[in-house]
């Protein structure tokens, strides 16, 4: 066998392997792409469902009921508007208050009582109590957390209920 024949054979084998490898890779990539496309479609579908739920939750009638129940706010009326010009703006610095009038002269120095002076001179000891260790109501915290959790669960409605309320079983 000639050297060149061998070379060609090797080359052919290499090409064959490379081709097989590439085609397998393409096959894999295609599968991956299909899976990605499917998951995109899935995501889009869930976005639609969530949007529908958002629309349902944003029903003006529902929002109004919620606002009435939980917020202490009232609808705005036309009489609550004022013009910007009507707002009194702060002008320059406020005028300085007039200087105090002197009605009496400085009183003469008063001599201190001798007993008071003695009190100042005698040092006093003050006992400082050691602060008590803080008490943590761990149990209560936990209880409160549980209450909050259950409240969250009560307010969060899943979309299944929404669909059900629309009459789809």
């Amino acid at each position, binding site marked *: 066998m000639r050297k060149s024949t061998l070379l060609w054979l090797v080359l052919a084998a290499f090409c064959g392997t490379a081709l097989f490898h590439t085609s397998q890779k393409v096959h894999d990539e295609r599968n991956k792409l299909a899976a990605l496309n*499917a998951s995109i479609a899935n995501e889009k579908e869930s976005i639609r469902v969530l949007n529908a739920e958002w629309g349902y939750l944003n029903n003006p009638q529902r929002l109004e009921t919620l606002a009435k129940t939980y917020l202490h706010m009232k609808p705005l009326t036309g009489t*609550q508007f004022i013009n910007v010009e009507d707002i009194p703006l702060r002008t320059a610095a406020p005028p300085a208050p007039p200087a105090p009038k002197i009605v009496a002269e400085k009183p003469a120095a008063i001599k201190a009582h001798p007993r008071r002076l003695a009190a100042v001179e005698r040092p006093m000891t003050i006992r400082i109590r050691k602060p008590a260790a803080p008490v943590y109501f761990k149990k209560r915290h936990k209880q409160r957390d549980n209450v909050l959790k259950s409240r969250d669960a009560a307010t969060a409605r899943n979309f299944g209920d929404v669909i059900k309320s629309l009459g789809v079983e």
Partner: protein
Amino acid sequence: MAFDLFHGRKLTISGTQAQMLEQARLRLVWVVMVMMMGYIAIILRMGDLCLLHHKSMSLPANNGAVAANEKPLRASIVDRNGNLLAVSLRMASVYANAKMVHDPAKLAQKLAAILPKQTTGELFKRLSSGKGFVWIQRFITPKQEYAINALGDPAIRFQEEQRRIYPDANLAAQVVGYTDIDSHGIAGIEKFFNKRLAAGGKPLRLTLDMRIQHIMRQDLAKSVKTFHALGGAGIVMDVTTGEIIAMVSLPDFDPNHLGEATNAEKFDRATLGDYEMGSTFKTFSIAAGLDSGKVHLYSVFDASHPLKIDQFTIHDFDAKDRPLTIPEIYIYSSNIGTAKMAQSLGPDTIENFYRTLGFMQQVPIQVPERAMPLYPSPWRLVNTLTAAFGHGIAVSPLHVVRAASAIVNGGILLKPTLVMPDDPNAAPEGTRVISADTSAKMRRMLELVVAGGTGSEAWVKGYDVGGKTGTADKNKNGKYENHANISSFLGVFPIWHPRYVVLALLDDPQGTKATYGFSTGGFTAAPVVGDVIARMGPLYGIQPRMDITRKRIEKEMKPYLKEYKEGQAIAALSTDN
């Protein structure tokens, strides 16, 4: 020639044999060349595909697989702020091949346990029918799908379908419309834009504002309930663009439960109902008079005696028994005065003007439910006189709103629209129907009606509202019913720079103690309009005007009011007709 065929033994061929070999070699070369050319062609094409055309070729191959087995979801419908009004979701439907069912009774029992809407008997009937395709149930939940799948019966199959969902239920039921179970639009926007929606893609953006729609629906429903009316209609339209901001018809229905809706609920009173509007029409006949130049604000018509024409007699409900100026005719709502004014214009003026305003054809609007107005044909003199005060001609509330927009916006009649234009800066196209000057005069009179006339219930502190009440005896099969009214109020605000026309109409309202038994537009419909404006103004950031007071308006119009005393106009409230 030397061939190494026999393991090193040399062989020489010559003579004829050599010639033959040479020929064979040549043939071989030809074959190889042809094959080579073939290969070269393939290599070139491969290079072409890989390097030059790889993008355009690869796309359909990849996406085709996904797109082929899925019908596009019907496009959503959203309001002007992007809030969902209708959306399609994928849901599974379950069906069976009845030929493959072995034990229909057992299967029916199992299915009925999973699907609470179905009964065993009904399912058994279907499963034992022997048909190749029977629906078990359309649209089931994922849980039910899982449970049915777990039965493992080969006769049961699933099909993915889309279902239309209306998150806001009743809110804009008639306008948005609805689809059948196969998602084909059969009413409203859903029908009008069926092709566009079925193709999927971008949501269809309407001009409706869910918030205003809600306000209008709530206020109208309150009034319908208070006055025990059969129903009502309410419209808010932007007079500068023709956009419909809200359109309500009561009673309404939940399009998610279409089976429970009655025909009366599905009926869109706002676009499909024809009503004689009564005095509201004086707005149009007086505008025709002022615009013709034959009548002026200070023109006087004698309303002291009923007007006889042919066998008809035209009365005033609250006769002033004296000559009245045009603004007086308008605020006291004098039928005699209006009829006499119409008479003075000549026979064709009113008819032609009504035609220009679109009262003799359907309103061009993007729903299939459009009313054809009812008007007299042939149009005789008596028709001119009655039509001038809104009798003998019936149009839909949308007709009135559209025409009123033209009266107040400076005189341009616009096409009302329910769909946001693609280009928000494009100027709307319209036809001039009256002069800007006539429009300004009409606005002053509309303002006066609310400031001190029959429409004072629509007065909103801080907002300059104008309007006109209308009450007409209900016409049933050609006969007027004495105790049944169509009561309406046409409101405009802000009247100094009109932006919105608000119309409320009540079908057969009954008076209550609070209204002294009256069921006229001023008592029943005007408060609805006032309430809508009071809530809508701040929402849209419209600047209130505290300098507008009733007294000032009355003073300004005083030159045109002959025997006008302050507050006197309010006395006319109960006598609106």
